């Protein structure tokens, strides 16, 4: 099982949970599980063409998946996946 951190705006779809555990070997599979388990999440994460929205950032152990292999990025037990908005300056 992989732990996925849920950002505040999506928690009303995860029964208020800020973390859920899901099965999968790649980010794409994890997201599919998430979308299945919590209806409504899919359209929040993806645009009409099914692409991840550009302000959605997904991190594996702190690394942006765009630095890795995108949705094909492999994940394994103990990895931590987070979904986060982009970073404002400071």
């Amino acid at each position: 099982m992989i732990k996925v951190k849920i950002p505040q705006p999506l928690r009303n779809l995860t029964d208020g949970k800020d973390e859920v555990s899901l099965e999968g070997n790649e980010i794409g599979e994890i997201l599919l599980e998430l979308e299945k388990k919590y209806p409504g999440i899919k359209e929040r994460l993806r645009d009409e063409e099914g692409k991840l929205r550009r302000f959605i950032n997904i991190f594996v152990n702190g690394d942006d998946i765009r630095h890795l292999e995108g949705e094909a990025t492999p994940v394994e037990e103990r990895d931590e996946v987070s979904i986060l908005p982009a970073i404002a300056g400071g």
Partner: protein
Amino acid sequence: MKKFRNLQCRECGRRFPAEAVYVCEYCFGPLEVIYDYGSIDISRDSILEGPLSLWRYKPLLPVHTDSPVTIGEGLTPLLRAGNLEKELGLKELYIKNDSVNPTFSFKDRVVTVAVSRARELGFDTVACASTGNLACSVAAYGKKAGLKTVVFIPADLEKGKVLGAGIYQPRLVGVRGDYDQVNRLCGELAGTFKWGFVNVNLRPYYAEGSKTLGFEVAEQLGFRAPRQVVVPMASGSLLTKIYKGLKEFEELGIIEEAGTRFFGAQASGADPIAEAVRKDEDIIRPVKVKTIAKSLAIGNPADGYYAWDVIKKSGGYAASVTDDEIVEGIKLLASTEGVFTETAGGVTVGVLKKLVENGKIDPELSVVIYITGNGLKTQEAVEKSVSKIEEIEPSLKSFKESCPWAV
């Protein structure tokens, strides 16, 4: 009639009440304040009669209060840069010197707005995630506002910046991690504590403060827009808001439309927006940052798409410079125009030079460069680049012997 009631998502257009909202709850897009321009009363005369601070533009800022939290921010000098013009072969160059704000960076513009709005929304605590300049500013304005003030910084931040924030006596929390992690933690805290985080849940108001860098430059040029501007980019917010400021002035008839071209400046080790412009791709690829320009070190810029868009549609361009070029930029500005800027300013000057050399900037048209921070805060970057001391004994004889150049 209130001049604003709502925030709107720049991505999906959904509207939200003008409260402390993080991002669009639907698509994570950034939210922006929506004004009822018809109800806004502002003119050249009303501006000229206003206070000697950015609050002369209050009708276009997202607060209702008549007593904003102010320490005299804004209305910083716009300087004609005659020496640098000659050096670079430009006809009309100006420096907007924002290093002389109350806490010595342009962040005071956004923080005065955010803290004023925080008080108006009833918060009793203001906070932020920062790499330095924002920390100084929030600490100062939070105290001035009489609010509880909590500043989150990376625990290993340079001593000078810790001191520059800590002197105002805020709560100072050092997070063991990089700025990224500090920022993410603050995102979480904003959902847990009822605090106003200026660059998280108050970001829609905060960001509007940067428009004043567009307003002021136009006013100081005699109510006309510059033909070209060079703006440093971290999240990209500043550039998009200067654009918005000029557009608002144009639409309200305060200035003529000038077709200002926007040029973006980044540091080579943190230049995802400049990279997208160079490649002419509309995808901003996040990067892992590495640069001495710490105040610009954002690898995944929240407003990168919008900055890219302004640059492209205005006919501008973007470039980035190395650490060495940054230091050269700082020296060049100081030794020609007497303005001592921090590393971000070195980026801006270095990029100006590069864009003049490669012909992207038209030397015949006016240029304004935005200098956003103060050199006394990043002293370590230039330690090896200042004049060497020539040591002498306190006598005329020793002076003449040791300094043969003196005639």
